[in-house]
């Protein structure tokens, strides 16, 4: 099956810093989602982004499907951005998501 890898695995930022999280996938995907998992376990939708670039406030994402990667940009990070960021890819038919390995982000004051 498809492999989804994320980097870096861990990231510590000072509040106000910018960061880029990367998601590589081993095969063609139909679509891709980015999630933020808060400390209580809730998976929060960030982006549904099969290709191109989307922006939502301080967050933006870019997917280059032909090169099999997606990037999540966080600008002016805040302590509330802390948590685990997952990308997840759809493959084949249906709605099965294959999740990446995650990036654990900690934003410090």
């Amino acid at each position, binding site marked *: 099956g498809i492999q989804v890898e994320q980097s870096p695995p861990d990231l510590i930022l000072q509040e106000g810093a910018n960061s880029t999280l990367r998601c590589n996938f081993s095969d063609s995907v*139909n*679509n891709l*989602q980015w*999630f933020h998992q808060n400390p*209580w*376990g*809730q*998976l929060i*939708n960030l982006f*549904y982004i*099969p290709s191109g670039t989307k922006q939502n406030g301080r967050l933006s994402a870019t997917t280059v499907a032909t090169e099999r990667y997606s990037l999540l940009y966080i600008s002016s990070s805040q302590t509330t951005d802390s948590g685990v960021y*997952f990308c*997840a890819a*759809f493959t*084949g*038919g*249906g*709605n*099965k*998501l*294959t*999740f*990446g*390995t*995650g990036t654990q982000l900690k934003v410090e004051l």
Partner: protein
Amino acid sequence: DAGVTQSPTHLIKTRGQHVTLRCSPISGHKSVSWYQQVLGQGPQFIFQYYEKEERGRGNFPDRFSARQFPNYSSELNVNALLLGDSALYLCASSLATGGAVGETQYFGPGTRLLVL
């Protein structure tokens, strides 16, 4: 609008017991999927149901089963619990199966299961 809801929020069971987890999708959503997330890992796909039929199954033993009801809510059942079944169980809903293109998945808060 209410999001995906799951019950119970936490559960403690002993080895060999049976457990039933419940999920109610977002109003209007017809597809429900279940995922297992072990500590330190990403969620792993267990099942997808659409219109009360199983549309996908992950690599989980037959001890895991699920069903979907006419109101599109769903139950996940796990028999003969093992210590390794301790995990966060997540339910996701979407509008439809999506065919060849995945539909946006919306996740519930999860049920934390601890097997002693």
